[in-house]
């Protein structure tokens, strides 16, 4: 893959990610920005295998951020940015190393962990823009005093443009960086195969369990929680008997 193709792909992933990220709070809120939709969508558009290798990644990120809710001024880590950055990194990695298996834990586990950090950067952007929006609110007051509805109508679009631009920039850079780190760490696996295998395999077991733990936190009352625990044990025994 040459540099021009890589640049076009970087731009495409960043722009698509920037548009998808607007859905999280600012526009529509149709839940296209939820990782379980956003990650496969990005894969469908850009991944060589149509996004099939990203399904597991999408599922884990979705579960890890299930409790992430924007209540009023509470701004949690940005799950959309985390998912899109990790997915973008894996897609680039697939382009750079076509022979590597993108669905292997050696690829998606580090991509996911780096994606979580980018999600924190996305959160910082959101907080910054919420502060900046105070100025836009004052500008809206001035427009209202001038009974200028046209100027007032442009203000939400200006806020959306800011969010889109910053998220696009963040996603483009972070996806490229994640892909480069993946390219760099792949040879290290060969240096110490048993350790890398063990660590990534344990993460392969632990991260879904973490996700189930987060899902359990969504049960606010004791009765559904007890029901989940009993059903889990019952189904586990039944599944064990079948094996």
């Amino acid at each position: 893959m040459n540099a021009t193709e890589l640049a076009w792909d970087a731009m495409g992933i960043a722009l698509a990610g920037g548009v998808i990220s607007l859905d999280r709070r600012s526009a529509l809120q149709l839940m296209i920005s939820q990782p379980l939709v956003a990650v496969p969508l990005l894969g469908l558009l850009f991944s060589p295998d149509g996004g099939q290798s990203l399904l597991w990644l999408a599922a884990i990120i979705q579960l890890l951020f299930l409790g992430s809710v924007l209540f009023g001024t509470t701004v949690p880590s940005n799950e959309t940015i985390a998912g899109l950055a990790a997915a973008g990194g894996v897609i680039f990695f697939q382009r750079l190393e076509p022979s590597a298996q993108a669905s292997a834990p050696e690829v998606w586990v580090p991509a996911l962990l780096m994606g979580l950090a980018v999600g924190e950067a996305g959160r910082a952007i959101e907080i910054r823009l919420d502060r900046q929006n105070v100025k836009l609110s004052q500008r809206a007051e001035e427009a209202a005093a001038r009974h200028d509805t046209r100027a007032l109508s442009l203000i939400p679009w200006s806020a959306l443009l800011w969010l889109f631009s910053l998220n696009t920039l963040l996603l483009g850079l972070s996806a490229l960086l994640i892909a480069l780190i993946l390219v760099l760490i792949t040879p290290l696996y060969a240096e110490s195969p048993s350790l890398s295998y063990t660590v990534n395999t344990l993460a392969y077991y632990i991260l879904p369990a973490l996700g189930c733990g987060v899902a359990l936190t969504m049960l606010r009352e004791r009765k559904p929680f007890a029901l989940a625990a009993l059903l889990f044990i019952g189904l586990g025994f039944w599944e064990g008997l079948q094996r």
Partner: protein
Amino acid sequence: MSRWCLTRVFLRSLLFQAVFNYERMQNVGFAYCLSPALERLYAGRDEALALALKRHLLIFNSHPYLSARVIGAALNLEEEIAAGRQPPESVHAMKQAAMTGIAAVGDSFFWSSLRPFLAISVVGLMLMKIIWAPLLFLALYNVVHLSLRLSGFIAGYRYGIEAVIDMTKTSMPLYSKALQYLSAIAIAYFSVIFNHKAHLSDRDLEFPTDFFLYFTLAGITFMAIRRRTSIIIVYAVAFISPFVLIYILNRMFPLI
């Protein structure tokens, strides 16, 4: 109010949170939604238009979907105010009275019940390699979301304050409770599937990856996180626990 104008107000409500800010929250969104209608109501009365826009730039914070009902009711009241049948203060009083209750109902139903339930169920389907599962999530979620948003806006515009009072008698909290039980069933079922998939994988470490380990980890996470996903906990568990486990396992079954 013409249908076209009402449609414009409703479409604008889809950008309700675009200018969310720490001082007055969704105030700009509210004024932005209503401005085409206010322009018509106060045509040729510039001072009255300025005052109407300013009324809607006061603090407002509620659930974005159910706020469509309040937007409709505010539009109804603005017609009354423009005709001189209601005092201008009535619309802000209605918004202040409605926003907290509506936020509580909406947050509990959409963010804490419907979205987690559908997400858990669809994640389970994705693990079964059902590729179109995300489309199912989008379709089911948005049927509920958009129908409540649109019907709320229409009811708000038609019945005004009555429509907002009706929200306090809604059965949505009951649906939230039912969805919590359904989520519990989905979590249990898909946790077993996760565990089963881990068993079926070629990733073998010669240690008991039984469902007890799974549930213990899930339980520990639950205790640690409670109601928020902390990135530090995720990192700590993802990075530290493998090394701790390797150390323990190495003592038990020397692998490395």
